[in-house]
């Protein structure tokens, strides 16, 4: 008994010493991140952490698609180039399950796990193991221009409208001669671009990606209706160049006052409401993303999160950084230094309980409710074998989502019919699913 205790004591001392030694010797961490506004703020504020710990950060800031490809290549081949990576709600569960990421269950009591919204925590966990900590999280909702709605005499009610009602509104608002387009939506091909908007819309129309036997459903009636609606809406009331516009392009257009409506990420609200970046900060309102035959899965769920690849050799320092960058204190620091409207949204209940944030961000409650309302485990009208609202959490989805996105983008550009696009998409999806062994 006493021997055991001595041994235990020695072990603890040794562990503490190693921990001390680790924290004493400066580490150099390589961190890969996406060039979003929130991440650029993090980069700007990180010298604070560097000074506090004596560690050094090397930044690799890349555009989203390049980042995803770069990080996936490195992690899948266990290249070990990165100690901290920025990944999304799609990759985290897949990679976590494969053992490519370190678990993050032990960031300490001060980290306050229960403060993180439950859907966000669940979205980044596999079997109660957290594999990435959320930097910011988002659902989707409709941005609209209060001044233009007033001028056109359109009332915004409390209830969720349908896409048909939405189209009627947009028709009244469209005024290209004065540089106002009825609606701006994503047209740029990519599973994280146009398909992120189209996914929830198809859900609203009652569609789904796969049936319970993993048979692709892309030529089903709901898909046809939804995509025809989408193409008609954007060709009639969208800005020129819609097939090339992604989230960033639309955000710039909306901030520049060129769009009357825009259904997109709630996390963009901080930007749109920030008078430094946006000309419509005081003229923008918001309401839920529309429904159609169902209200299930009509708002997407996404989170950008930080994770530590299992190939990293500097796990302790990396964990310390993760803890710092996703803590309540960090959010408060952004609030103080950059203005509360720019604080990373969607992750912690404490942010939304903060009166300063509520005051600076009139959209706070709507965003919170939208995020809490998402349920990636049950996203569609009919049952599905997958999780994910605007994506399907299987490794093959990226390829399929990109291809389908390309086809729909081509239909939007007028290079082929919607039926043709969906026909091609369906064929491709069947091929890929057969190749991957889902369809026997």
């Amino acid at each position, binding site marked *: 008994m006493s021997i055991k205790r001595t041994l235990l004591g020695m072990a603890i001392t040794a562990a503490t010493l190693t921990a001390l030694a680790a924290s004493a010797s400066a580490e150099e961490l390589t961190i890969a991140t996406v060039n979003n506004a929130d991440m650029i703020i993090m980069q700007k504020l990180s010298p604070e952490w560097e000074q506090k710990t004596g560690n050094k950060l090397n930044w690799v800031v890349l555009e989203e698609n390049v980042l995803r*490809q770069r990080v996936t*290549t490195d992690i*899948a081949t266990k290249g070990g180039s990165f100690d901290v990576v920025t990944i999304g709600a799609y990759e985290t569960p*897949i990679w976590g399950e494969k053992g490519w990421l370190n678990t993050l269950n032990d960031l300490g009591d001060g980290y306050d796990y229960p403060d993180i919204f439950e859907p966000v925590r669940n979205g980044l966990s596999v079997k109660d193991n957290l594999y990435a900590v959320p930097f910011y999280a988002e659902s989707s909702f409709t941005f609209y221009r209060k001044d233009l709605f007033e001028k056109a005499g359109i009332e915004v009610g409390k209830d969720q409208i349908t896409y048909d009602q939405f189209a009627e509104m947009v028709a009244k608002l469209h005024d290209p001669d004065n540089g106002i387009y009825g609606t701006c939506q994503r047209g740029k091909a990519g599973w994280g671009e146009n398909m992120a908007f189209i996914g929830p819309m198809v859900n609203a129309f009652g569609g789904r990606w796969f049936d319970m036997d993993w048979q692709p459903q892309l030529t089903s009636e709901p898909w046809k209706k939804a995509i025809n609606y989408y193409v008609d809406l954007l060709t009639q009331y969208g800005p020129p160049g819609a*097939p*090339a516009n992604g989230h960033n392009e639309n955000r710039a257009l909306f901030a520049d006052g060129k769009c009357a409506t825009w259904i997109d990420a709630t996390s963009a609200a901080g930007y749109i409401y920030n008078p430094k970046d946006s000309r419509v900060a005081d003229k923008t309102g918001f309401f839920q993303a529309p429904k159609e035959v169902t209200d299930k899965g009509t708002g997407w769920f996404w989170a950008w999160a930080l994770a530590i690849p299992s190939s990293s050799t500097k796990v302790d320092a990396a964990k310390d950084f993760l803890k710092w960058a996703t803590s309540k204190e960090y959010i408060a620091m952004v609030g103080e230094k950059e203005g509360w409207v720019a604080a990373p949204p969607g992750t912690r209940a404490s942010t939304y309980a903060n009166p300063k944030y509520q005051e600076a961000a009139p959209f706070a409650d709507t965003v919170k409710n939208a995020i809490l309302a998402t349920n990636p485990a049950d996203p569609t009208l009919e049952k599905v074998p997958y999780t994910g609202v605007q994506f399907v959490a299987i490794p093959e989805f*990226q390829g399929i989502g990109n291809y389908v996105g*390309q086809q729909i983008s081509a239909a*939007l550009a007028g290079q082929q019919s919607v039926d043709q696009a969906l026909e091609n998409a369906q064929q*491709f999806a069947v091929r890929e699913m057969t190749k991957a062994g889902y369809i026997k």
Partner: protein
Amino acid sequence: MATLHSRASARLMLSPAVLLLLAWMIIPLCLTVYFSFLRYNLLMPGEEAFTGWSNYYFFITDPSFKDAIINTLTLLGGVLLITVAGGILFALLLDQPMWGQGIVRIMVIAPFFVMPTVSALVWKNMFMNPVNGVFAHIATGLGLQPYDFLSQIPWASIIWIVSWQWLPFATLILLTALQSLDQEQLEAAEMDGASWFNRFWFIMLPHLSRAITVVILIQTIFLLSVFAEILVTTNGGPGTATTNLTYLIYVQSLLQYDVGAGSAGGVIAIILANIVAIFLMRMIGKNLDA
């Protein structure tokens, strides 16, 4: 004796380059060929298995494959046509006496130094963007509807961007060649009453033929693997309108992480490149007495 000696040392001197290039070519090539027969998805490690020809089957029957081949060849043809024809015209113009020729040369050569990524970004955003681009501003200024180049004529737009990068190269080589032309020969022909067109067709053009061959050869090497311009501007779309073979391989192996299919595509691309190379060699054989 001397020749024998020097032949041996020549072989010795050549060998580092040959060995290095062999290694550079053979090692990845062998790995690529090996991978192309595996079911190998980067996201599913440990599940690699031999699958025979199925990667090739899936790559060739990929709905984008035909478009990719056609696009690869039209890009090659289109850019070569624009740069050679444009290059000859520009060279003829720059060869004329004028003031400030040095400055004009500096302006004309500049695009050749610009990173492909940068030039694609600049054309896409500052010029072809249908809302804020220069072309859109000009169109609205003239009361016209802005034209959306990258979604309406995506492939032509990319051919244009790539041509802009290579036109200086062609122009300057052809100009140098033109300047080396014997002036007296031209003047004699003029005395004899040969029209300008005849002088161009029978004297200048034959003189330029070697330079044109060089332009074609060098550009072909780079044009077969155009990639950055597509990645930055259109991501291969809309649809498959701007997917070339290189981009299709990128999609397969680095966006879908299907290394097996991507490798099969790589092998096909190498075969295609070699066909073009043989074709070129025939041409070079005539024009360059290498």
